[in-house]
């Protein structure tokens, strides 16, 4: 494995949202949306975060960009701690990292033309000299697959896929190094999804972009990622390169998640693991391993002690999972405790 440059390093990131209550509006409790997440994104790779709704994957993305101020933790970008910046310094540095949103209908201002949208982005960051901005708009539009004659149209004249391209062009207009794609293709038709994903891949090659790809769609994630993080209830349960995660799944939650991918292979009868119950509330997450309420392998140890992310025998470098029994489950020594 070659030594890659660390572009983004997240350490023990926590995002607690206060719940106000009572007459005085005091904080009565917290939603622990992200509870101690650490990972590193290397330059030029695509790191995906997957998990079901409410597991904190989007919150992680937003906290990195400080769209919501994280409660605690460290976010280092290119060796500099972003959370130490004041508002002005942060705004200056925002050109290095951009975000693409899920909903192409809500993510662009309906009253601005494509030209205005892209020019404004360049104007804010002053990334392109004034007299070159018009040429750059056309260039960007062509890069994302839109025609220059569409520059003066308003968002409602475009389809969802085209709007998403506008969103991508806006993100590119400030020449970022890192792009956080927050469910960037989830709202699109499957055929359009493929187009946008291929566009993202093409852009990555062309501009040496690094992606933090947040999604719940394992098919898409499998297609685009180099490495994958699986999150459950605000914590990372498994982190691995794509091949290891799919071929050498360690965590019971990941196994259950992967078993949900529809397969076209008729011969291979897959066992569906259906988890019982719902995801517990992030306001009062279960003690010990957060997955123990739904895990078929759970024991008393799981209910009391929180497992740390660790590497077991037979796992490749960089592959880690947070389960007390992962070796035993893998070898068949530890059988499901519940039926």
């Amino acid at each position, binding site marked *: 494995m070659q030594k890659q440059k660390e572009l983004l390093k997240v350490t023990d990131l926590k995002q607690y949202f206060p719940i106000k209550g009572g007459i005085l509006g005091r904080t009565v409790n917290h939603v622990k949306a992200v509870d101690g997440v650490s990972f590193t994104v290397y330059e030029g790779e695509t790191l995906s975060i997957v998990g079901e709704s409410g597991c904190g994957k989007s919150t992680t993305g937003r906290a990195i960009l400080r769209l919501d101020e994280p409660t605690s933790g460290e976010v280092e970008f290119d060796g500099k701690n972003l959370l130490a910046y004041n508002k002005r310094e942060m705004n200056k540095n925002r050109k290095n990292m951009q975000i693409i949103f*899920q909903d192409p209908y809500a*993510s662009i201002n309906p009253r601005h033309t494509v030209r205005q949208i892209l020019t404004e982005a360049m104007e*804010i960051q002053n990334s392109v000299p004034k007299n070159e901005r018009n040429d750059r708009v056309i260039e960007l539009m062509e890069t994302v697959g839109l025609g220059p004659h569409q520059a003066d149209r*308003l968002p409602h004249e475009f389809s969802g896929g085209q709007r998403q391209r506008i969103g991508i062009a806006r993100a590119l207009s400030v020449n970022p190094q890192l792009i956080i794609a927050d469910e960037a293709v989830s709202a699109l038709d499957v055929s359009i999804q493929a187009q946008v994903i291929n566009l993202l891949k093409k852009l990555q090659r062309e501009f040496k972009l690094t992606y933090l790809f947040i999604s719940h769609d394992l098919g898409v994630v499998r297609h685009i990622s180099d490495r994958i993080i699986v999150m459950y209830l605000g914590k990372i349960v498994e982190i691995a390169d794509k091949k290891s995660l799919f071929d050498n799944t360690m965590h019971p939650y990941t196994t259950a998640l992967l078993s949900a991918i529809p397969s076209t292979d008729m011969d291979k009868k897959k066992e569906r693991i259906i988890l019982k119950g719902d995801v517990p509330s992030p306001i009062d997450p279960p003690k010990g391993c957060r997955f123990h309420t739904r895990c078929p392998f759970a024991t008393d140890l799981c209910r009391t002690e929180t497992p740390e992310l660790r590497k077991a025998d037979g796992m490749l470098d960089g592959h880690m999972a947070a389960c007390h029994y992962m070796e035993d489950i893998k070898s068949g020594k530890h059988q499901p405790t519940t039926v």
Partner: protein
Amino acid sequence: MSQSTEHIENTRTAIKPPNPRFKNWRLVYRKLKKNKSAMVGGFLILFLIIVAIIGPYFTPYQPDTQDMLNKLQPPSGDNWLGTDNFGRDIFSRIIHGTNLTLIVGFFSVLLGGAVGVLIGIFAGYYGGRTDSILMRLMDILLAFPSILLALAIVTVLGGSLQNVIIAVAISSVPVFARIVRGSTLSVKKLEYIDAMRALGASDARIIFKHIFPNITSPIIVQATLNIATAILSASGLSFLGLGAQPPTPEWGAMLSDGRNYLYNAPHVALFPGLAIVLVVLAFNMLGDGLRDAFDPKTKE
């Protein structure tokens, strides 16, 4: 060959669709046009504006010319709407009073709206403590009936048309602040605001270039409806003698003058009263129509 493609290119630019920026407004206008009462209200307002501007040059009498021999005359060929207790022509006075009424309506709403919109946007955008403090202040203002509040303010400031405008403006501030705060909250949540923040846009840029243009329709509707309320409050204050001072031909003041002769010469109070009703009705009809037209849920 090249000529023919050039030709196609030319026709394409020739039938270029109209500027899409006005498409939304055109849609609103199309819906509005279907609404009879809104159109009646709109044209009535247009008519009143024209009367206010050019009417004073065409009145048969000056508004303050007294003719004590012909006082309290009922409507006739000479005095279309009769004369008041000083023998002044009521028709001429109403025409001269039109611009006063409209000015009070427009300016008090403009002033109150501007302040209210700013307070609402700041409260909604910054949230938290800013929001609590500003909105509790608005709640205090809102707790008083607007006419009572205006009355109190005019009493403090002293009675004059200018102070009436200020008083009515202050009493309409909380209404705007509330509506704008709500709209700001809903627009603020949209992802394009987050996108602007991710680009490093300043708060001022986000507020004025991205939030404000997207909350104009409720503001326009509220402003139209509020003009009616403002005119009514202003007339009310003048009726109580706290607004326009005699001999200003203000409709509320005229109504108040006529009150003493209600039995013998009802027309003195009747016509200014009808004029007030007409203006308020017109603004209300237009405002209601605009509200329906701006509502995306109502079909054409």
